[in-house]
């Protein structure tokens, strides 16, 4: 049932602007404008033998079936304890493939957007991950720092 709903979500995201037409009346994770959200922990290898974990980070995924790319918005994330700010970071142009019970994502040398524009300092290297209707996990290198994420899907309102 969930998988079915999940693919309905994907189909809806293909339609991009199909705002209300695809909504359902059960406990679906389906989000009206094609966004699905996960909350989980971002773990950052500090390259000094320690790791920093930023808990309860929210990540929103948007799938564009026409372009066959996904977009990942990492909301209010910190990559180090001493980092004085949290950032919204958007990773665009992620490849995705429907595989088995979920979707796999991948990308390399993607310059994310943060603070209003391209943010080469955090260029994404070797992004790979798996998305299901209940879980999302990925690993990548963000600039010089290896980053992993493991999260659970949440109901969210679309913005």
């Amino acid at each position, binding site marked *: 049932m969930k998988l079915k709903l999940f693919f309905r979500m994907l189909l809806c995201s293909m339609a991009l602007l199909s705002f209300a037409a695809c909504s359902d009346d059960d406990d679906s994770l389906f989000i009206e404008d094609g966004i699905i959200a996960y909350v989980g922990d971002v773990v950052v290898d500090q390259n000094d033998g320690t790791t920093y974990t930023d808990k309860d980070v929210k990540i929103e995924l948007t799938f564009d079936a026409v372009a066959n790319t996904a977009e990942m918005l990492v909301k209010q994330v910190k990559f180090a304890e001493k980092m*004085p700010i*949290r950032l*919204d970071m958007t990773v665009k142009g992620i490849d995705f493939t429907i595989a088995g019970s979920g979707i796999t994502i991948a990308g390399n040398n993607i310059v994310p957007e*943060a*603070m209003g524009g391209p943010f080469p300092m955090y260029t994404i290297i070797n992004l790979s991950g798996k998305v299901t209707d209940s879980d999302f996990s990925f690993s990548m290198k963000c600039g010089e720092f290896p980053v992993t994420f493991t999260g659970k899907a949440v109901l969210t309102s679309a913005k």
Partner: protein
Amino acid sequence: MCRTILFLTITLLSSLFSTEVSGRILSDASDKKLQVRDTAISLSEVAVVAQLKQKNDLRLEPLSSSVLKMGNIERRQISSLNDFSYYTPNLYIPDYGSKITSSIYVRGLGSRIDNPAVGLYVDKIPYLNKNGFDSDLWDIMRMEVLRGPQSTLYGRNTIGGIINIHTLSPMVYQGTRFSVGYGNGNSLNIKGSTYWKPGEKWAFSVGGNYYSTDGFFDNEYDGSDCDWMKGGSGRFRLVFKPGSRLTIDNSFIAGRVEQGGYTYSLYDAESGTTAPVSYNDLCGYERTTISNGLSVNYEMDRYLLSSVTSWQYLDDCMTLDQDFTPKRMFTLQQAQNEHTVTQDIVLKRNGENKRWQWLSGLTLFYKSMKMAAPVRFKQDGINELILANINKGIHTVFPNDDILFQEDEFDIFSNFKAPVFGAAVYHQSEYKVGRFAFTAGLRIDYEHSQLDYDSNSSLSYKFTLTMQQFKAFRTQLKGKEKRDYIEPLPKFAVQYSLKDYGNLYVSVARGFKAGGYNTQMFSDILQNQMQTDMMADLGVYFDNAGIAGYTVGEVITYKPEYSWNYELGGHFNLWGGRLRADAALFYIDCTDQQLTIFPSGKTTGRMMTNAGRTRSLGGELSLNARVASGLDMGLSYGYTDARFVKYNSGIADYKGKHVPYVPKNTLSATANYTLYKLGNFLDKLSFRAGYNGVGEIYWNEANDMKQKFYSLVNGSVYAQKGLFSLEFWGKNLTGTDYNAFYFVSVGNTFFSKGKPAQYGVTLSVEF
């Protein structure tokens, strides 16, 4: 008939030995015309003392009051409430520097902005907005101040007392008056009025005034006059008395004022000196006021039914260089448009000598206010007040990159609607038992206030690290706040008659000052919101943002102020009535006292907040004597010690500190010597010498800045021959240098200097 004779006798006696004794002995007057002129003050008592809620003679009431009559008002060149305050103990109305408002302090209670602590009534019409308080006073028959809360009879915003102004009535005086005065500062003052009584049943008066002055301070930035002013007003009054029972009295008043800016001088804390006034942007104020009041009295055998209906219109606009420096920081424009309707209905027992005297009343009011208050940030302000704050955080992470704005100037627009309405019922009874008179009263006051706000700004910005182009950005705060209050306002008093020697009294009364909204803070609130929104737009969130987590409602709303006033006093007639003494001691316990504070840091606004608890204690003493034929002397002294009992601002604890703006001492001494019939040369020659002392005054809650006690010397020489009179007058003749007011903007401290020596001559004709 007996009642009328008694009434007139009391009135004439009270006028003969008024708080400020009239400068002319009635029986001296052989010249009929002169008698009319001088007795206009006395005869007017008959009309004036037909008060709506008070007794004819305030000295018979259990309260502390001061009265000035026409002769003394005009001889002392009193043309504003500010002038009036110098002659009344414990009443302090500093020169605010603009007619936009009047800051009135009585016995430690007061208000710099927003709701007044003292009610103002002109010919029984209540003026609800302080912005209309500083109006032109001319042909004023009588001015009264009643100290202590008068909330039982007058309701909200009379926590410190009330000021009653009675204009000259065409029913009691007929004639034409004209005067022209000129003084230093190129000050011109012209007044003209005429009073007619074509028949026994009706009378009318028409009058107007015009004034202009170059002021007394220059703006060093461009050498222009700083405190110039011009304006005028007109008054039309029609009184209709179709029979012995009904009186209809309608007053229409319109006024207009245009003036320059504040005389704020930058204060240097290290040297303790103030620099000359110097700011680059336009400052000024203009106001149009129109009011109409209809008073209807119907006298029955046992009761008197009165109705006072008023409509007031106020349209004003203030323009400010609010940093008051030559820098291009920011300007403010505040334009208000207000309509007010009031209705007071009073039913009272007729005749003041009944054993049981009572009055009951119903009050209704509605006030509609619209205000537009755009703040324009200019290049220096953008850099120092906004970008400096934003980039301070940005630089902690990206030291070489900045947020930039595309605009050299941008506006924060703020529009408000603030309707208020209220209703009250009240009753007060006085019951006499032997020499004792017991008074008890209660008012139930309901008030609903609301603020609709829409504050917004649009600009373009970029972050140099990531953005090549400027990005359009808009931030907005829009919402509504509303409050309802129901307040019981009781009063109790016991009075003991000393018969011809006066009376003693004790009283307890509760005062209430309405809460309100800090519209002045929206510039700062929106700046904070803009920073938050802009960072969110960038996707940046600071862990320790320095941007307070608050709701708009919390910041802009302040609570009502309440007080209990405990008073012991007396009115005494000594030496056969040649010396009149009035004395009072008071203790005020005030909770949630409303204070105007300037938030720390480089903020652009000011706000009203509530101090936890204050107490004020002190007293008043007035002595007025006819020392010898033609020589009258008066002395009044007020002492107030007002301190915080409980007030922690979150930054500091001010317990034990003095409440700001409240003078500890107010002192006035006057001597008036008059000679009559100097041969054929003069009908009257009068010399007046006056002394006023005020202080010390603490300017802030920390009490680290204060104005010491200062003295002002005034005087005049008045000569009259036939229809004409000529007066040479002077104020602050010794040129005392003192600070009249205090202001803080973007972390800078400013003082407004008191006016220097003023002198002039006034020529009057009356026929």
